[in-house]
């Protein structure tokens, strides 16, 4: 039985918006267990969001439109990215409009505005966070492009849907180039989504913050949207890695029957991804900020090696 792809598209966006907090909740739960603590439950991020939405906004007098606009932009780009990445199905109408380069540009737009918003109020911490974020971005984005290009080379396309299609249909055997790209992508994901060892999402220490420093001045609804968008970003990066490197189980063109299985596979893979993130985070301290270039340099090197090995071995 066939189903209108627009319905699947709609369902996928709803899943991204709705499940992103649960994924963060899952990571926090695992982390608590690893540290021998009791957890606040899977649904604590939802409660946090509800709390923030019901609080009033405290806005600095000198806040410009950038500051007020950025939360909506962050949320909007995250939703749009959620519509492009093949998470539940390959057959997404919107996926055809944008390839992987556009996707990275979408994240770059969000980051650009977030960095501007961090500096907008003029506090010391905001500017500090923006400068650090940009340092990391300038290193992470080339590495990410490189990793994605390696995958594209192997699949002869920059369209996500086609990449996933090719890998999923088993036309491609395991290639060393993909293994290198995968390692690079994990490192980039940790940096891009502000996880340990690059940034600490749970810290209260302003001087050490990167992402959190930029959003220190946000409150109420604005903060809720920013937080939600960053939960979605984590969800999307993990989903992107899953889609590109281990898409097995994803629903193919227009089949309704594949959908429940696709959702099941997605949840299982996210569960495992959460475990990997927590294993890394529990075992490592945050690195000194000037070690981050080395860290991302390794990611870039891995991606480059992937590309080289493609030309040499294939």
């Amino acid at each position, binding site marked *: 039985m066939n189903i209108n792809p627009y319905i699947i598209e709609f369902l996928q966006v709803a899943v991204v918006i709705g499940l992103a907090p649960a994924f963060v909740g899952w990571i926090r739960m695992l982390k608590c267990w690893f540290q*021998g603590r009791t957890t606040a439950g899977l649904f604590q991020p939802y409660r946090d969001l509800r709390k923030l939405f019901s609080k009033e906004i405290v806005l600095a007098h000198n806040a410009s439109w950038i500051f007020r606009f950025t939360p909506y932009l962050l949320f909007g780009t995250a939703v749009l990215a959620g519509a492009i990445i093949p998470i539940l199905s390959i057959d997404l109408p919107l996926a055809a409009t944008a390839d992987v380069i556009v996707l990275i540009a979408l994240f770059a737009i969000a980051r650009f505005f977030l960095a501007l918003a961090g500096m907008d109020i003029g506090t010391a911490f905001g500017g500090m966070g923006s400068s650090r974020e940009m340092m990391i971005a300038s290193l992470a984005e080339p590495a990410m492009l490189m990793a994605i290009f390696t995958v594209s080379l192997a699949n002869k396309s920059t369209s996500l849907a086609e990449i996933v299609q090719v890998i999923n249909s088993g036309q491609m055997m395991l290639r060393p180039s993909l293994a290198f790209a995968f390692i690079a992508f994990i490192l980039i994901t940790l940096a891009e989504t502000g996880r340990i060892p690059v940034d600490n999402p749970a810290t209260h220490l302003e001087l050490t913050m990167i992402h959190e420093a930029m959003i220190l001045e946000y409150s109420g609804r604005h903060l809720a949207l920013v937080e939600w968008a960053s939960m979605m970003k984590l969800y999307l990066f993990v989903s992107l890695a899953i889609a590109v490197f281990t898409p097995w189980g994803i629903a193919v063109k227009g089949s309704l029957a594949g959908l429940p299985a696709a959702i099941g596979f997605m949840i299982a893979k996210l569960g495992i991804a959460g475990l990997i993130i927590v294993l890394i985070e529990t075992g490592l*301290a*945050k*690195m*000194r900020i000037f*070690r981050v270039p080395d860290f991302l340099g390794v990611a870039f090197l891995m991606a480059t090696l992937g590309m080289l090995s493609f030309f040499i071995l294939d």
Partner: protein
Amino acid sequence: MREMFDALNTAIGKEARFFGPDFEAPVLSCVVPKERFYDVARAMKKIDAMLAAEWATDESRLGKGFGIYACYRLRSQYLIVRTDLSADDPTFPSITKRYVPAYRFERQIESLMGLTPVGHPDTRPWIKFEDWPTDAWPLRKTFDASKRMPRVKGKYAWISFEGEGIYEIPVGPVHAGIIEPGHFRFQAVGEHVMHLETRLGYVHKGIEKKFEELSWIEGARLAGRVSGDTTVAHSLAYCMALESMTGCTPPPRAQWLRALFLERERIANHIGDLGAICNDVAFTFILYQNMRLKEMIVRTNRTLFGHRFMMDRVVPGGVSADIDSKGIKEIEDQLDYVSDEFERLVLVLDDNASLEDRTRDTAIMSKEMAMDLGMAGFVARASGLDLDCRKHHPFPPYDRLNIKVPVLMAGDVHARVWVRVEEIRESFRLIREILKSLPDGPIASPIKLPKRVATGFAAVEGWRGEIIYWLQAGPAGEVNRCMVRDPSSICWLGLEQSVPFGNIVPDFPVCNKSFNQSYSGNDL
């Protein structure tokens, strides 16, 4: 003793008038003419004595003007040098040029007592705020603390940098965590800290003034509240100073119990610190495990001694909480469990390369710097200075306990972590030994209070380091002055001075936590 005596003699000869100790502590005291005060500092510096404290007294009730005191320490010996100032010439020669710690002591003397250090490079107030009237000197007897102080307009002259790419980051006084207030102002280029200026005084409560309104007995309770996490050591130092004034000796059991309390306080705080340091580099596993161990210890304190931090358990003349054989068993059992768990956590701490990468070479305080700044406690011991009052200036029962003091040379955060680890291990051993040889008998003896002018002095090694109390009784035996010197009064300067040497802004929290000084103990 001999060395300091000789140095003093060569420097100023017969002009120093020694007077016998009117208390039992081995403290040499002398009066020197005002113009010789600086010469003494120079002579002391020459023999590498450290300045432990400098303070002033208002002695109008004793029929005199003001007194300036400097307390020097050479290994295990203390020397207190006094000089008298007349009421109409409230100035004294600054010794900051010889001794860096005097930098803040003298600013504080000027701010709170209104005596001007001549030759001091920095005349800005310290602890006192810019909106206090210029003639508001709380420690003078003429100052009425019960009245509301009028506020005036004022401005604090921050040190500021100018130039391409200089970035000023003000942090505090209100911080994001549940900690006390203090202001840190960084001048940074990129992430590199060029200069750090600390401003404290936000928790100034007028404690030294308050002592003068209380009786000697009530003072012990106030001393226990100078810095909440060091309540045992502070009340112990106060009580010992008071006891030294009247030659009162607490019964042996009380002395051993005091040591037990002191070591338990040290273990609880050091374990908490280790967790907090790891948390500041986002290694939260150790934080939560250490919090659990610390909580177990303080809960046992509550069940056995009636208070989680053992506040008010050390009283003048002895202690107010005893322990029975069941309690001893409970402590020993818990100690076995806690020390096993602690050793497991130390393995994790030791094995983690990413953690070591953050702590090594961060906030280095060299041995020379630690000497110059007169550091105390674990900060000094992490920088190669073998200083511990329990060993060098032992009070009973430490004279019978044969203490091993860990000394490390690196002076970085890593060294301060490992000095704490070793001290915790040593304290585990000490507690076992104390419990084994706890003598029987009463836990308190009646305290004699001073009836005339007298002074008392005591130095106790709290978990942060050497705490000094100096008490002075007035003509009727009342409290005329109570000088409190928490190690924070000097070690805060150590933090400020060690950070700008090659450290970056995001490393500051862990540098700060590795020092973990008390705001309250400094601001008083």
